[in-house]
């Protein structure tokens, strides 16, 4: 499991990146969901460590965070869970955590990154750590080979160059202003953003925030290296609870059927 790298997700065409909030509706379901997502075709899995105050999230993922915390999900529970799915070989795609600065800081930066390495987590996305503050966790992340995933937003403009230049793992391209959540339209000029990224780096760039339909995923993948789907999956989990697994799989397959054109081209 130590051989898994984030770039593996981008080695066979455009990447389908699937997000799920850890511990929602409960830890048992999450533990079954992760291998099921891989089986359905997810190339990289993002697991949200629930936080009391997720300021980058819209209502769908906020509610999932509240449900998971109410069920008693902790950072340690999720580390143990990931360790199990790595050890039994049921998840072989790269896994990254999405959480906020405080859960990492309070856990202990060194202790957190060390645990990531031990359990087979490949990177962390921390929406409240911008470029200027990435030094906060960088030393510890580097020590244990954990990528800190950088983000660029529609407002980043000339910041894109310096962010892309230092980015590792993959670059998270935020598609729209605002918080996570399903959107009917994405109006940002993603192509232009990716062009600017390419001036500084050849790092894989995947687009997230607001993607819910296979058509949107395809449109985003057309101009980038992959599509990140979060709220749409969390909504299915919210709707079906412990019975969500086949529905999430079906959804991931639908998204993937649109991305297939790229997979076959390889």
């Amino acid at each position, binding site marked *: 499991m130590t051989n898994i790298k984030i770039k593996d997700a981008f080695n066979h065409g455009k990447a389908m990146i699937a997000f799920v909030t850890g511990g929602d509706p409960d830890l048992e379901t999450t533990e079954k969901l992760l291998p099921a997502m891989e089986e359905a075709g997810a190339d990289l899995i993002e697991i949200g460590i629930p936080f009391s*105050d997720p300021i980058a999230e819209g209502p769908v993922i906020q509610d999932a965070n509240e449900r998971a915390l109410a069920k008693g999900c902790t950072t340690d529970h999720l580390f143990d869970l990931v360790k199990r799915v790595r050890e039994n070989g049921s998840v072989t795609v790269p896994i990254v955590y999405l959480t906020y600065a405080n859960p990492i800081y309070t856990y202990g930066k060194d202790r957190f990154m060390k645990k990531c390495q031990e359990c087979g987590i490949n990177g962390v996305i921390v929406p*409240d750590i911008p470029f200027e503050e990435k030094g906060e966790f960088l030393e510890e992340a580097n020590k244990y080979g954990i990528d800190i995933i950088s983000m660029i937003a529609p407002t980043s403009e000339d910041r894109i160059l310096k962010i892309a230049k230092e980015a590792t793992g993959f670059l998270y391209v935020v598609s729209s202003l605002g*918080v996570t959540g399903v959107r009917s339209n994405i109006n940002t000029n993603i192509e232009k953003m990716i062009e600017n990224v390419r001036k500084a780096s050849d790092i894989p760039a995947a687009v997230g925030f607001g993607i819910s339909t296979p058509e949107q995923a395809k449109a985003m993948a057309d101009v980038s290296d992959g599509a990140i789907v979060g709220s749409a999956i969390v909504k299915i989990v919210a709707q079906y609870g412990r019975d969500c697994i086949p529905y999430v799989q079906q959804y991931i397959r639908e998204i993937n059927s649109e991305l297939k054109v790229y997979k076959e081209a390889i």
Partner: protein
Amino acid sequence: MENNGRFGEFGGQYIPETLMNAVQELEEAYNHYKDDPEFIKELDDLLKNYAGRPSLLYEAKKMTKDLGGAKIYLKREDLNHTGAHKINNVIGQCLLAKKMGKTRVIAETGAGQHGVATATVAALMGLECEIFMGKLDTERQALNVYRMKLLGAKVNAIETGTKTLKDAVNAAMREWTSRIEDTHYVLGSVMGPHPFPTIVRDFQKIIGEEIKEQILEKEGRLPDVVMACVGGGSNAIGTFYDFIGDESVQLIGCEAAGEGADTPRTAATLATGKMGIFHGMKSLFCQDEYGQIAPVYSISAGLDYPGIGPEHAWLNEIGRAQYVAITDDEAVEAFEYLSREEGIIPAIESSHALAYAMKLAPTMDKDKIIVVTVSGRGDKDVAAIARYRGEQIYD
């Protein structure tokens, strides 16, 4: 600005990438306008002719005599237009927003005083205004909600999390990430990402500057103690800032203990909090072992916040300021005491500082001087205090 927004280890800019250009533009604009003679002139004019500054430094003779110790002066921020110190910061930030070409302001509010001040200045300056307030706070401060609506603001009652100030800040931050181009976020306290703690402090430091001038005129010397209540900490930093270099002056911040700093029903951040990163800043926060922000409690909606501004965390760490925790009971007693004794009904927030003055003054000699900042007036709290005492009256 000092150390890129750091006060020792505290402070920083821990916010989503989407907001980074906005806070950097704000910093640039502020650095430009703070020394701009035209801006300073407009600000001074509004503070004097609209807010009613300078506020009085009032010698509380009956209170002094009754407590039998140090002489007590009250810095009357409650006499400002809109009834609290909040207007000092709001005038400054709205003026800045106008200069930056923004046409809309948003703000969080706890007790509603910052929301009222923002709605007021937005009305004056012709800015569109939207306020975010925890659902629980809209209920315990219903009068202020109606005031904001009267002033033309839209008030959003926030139903997530603890439905208090923390959740109002979350909602305002989320709103700002979705609409930046025409919108300025008027943060109400010395918290959040850089440059807010510095900007808000600079617009509030007039409190301490006036105290110094007024006390020198009345007493010919500096006070021995200045004190103020602390939630995020804007009236306290405003009170302290001009005295930081005067080592003979003791600085005391009074935070909300709720039902007691040794109970879970508390908002005493310095007494019970740990280092963390939240709401854009590294500071002290009430939280559990996994970094989940604690659901804090205080009778005072304005102090009911799980963190504290980074400059206070730093002043505490270097020992320049001391912080004490005051319970609901003590604050309510002080609220009633000042009303009865001096004919001044203070805000329940300010009553936390007054409660500590009541404890401290009798232990000091009569030739000592204490200045307490009365950050706001208590009209908004009357119905809640009545309920606390078991009387059902309606706002």
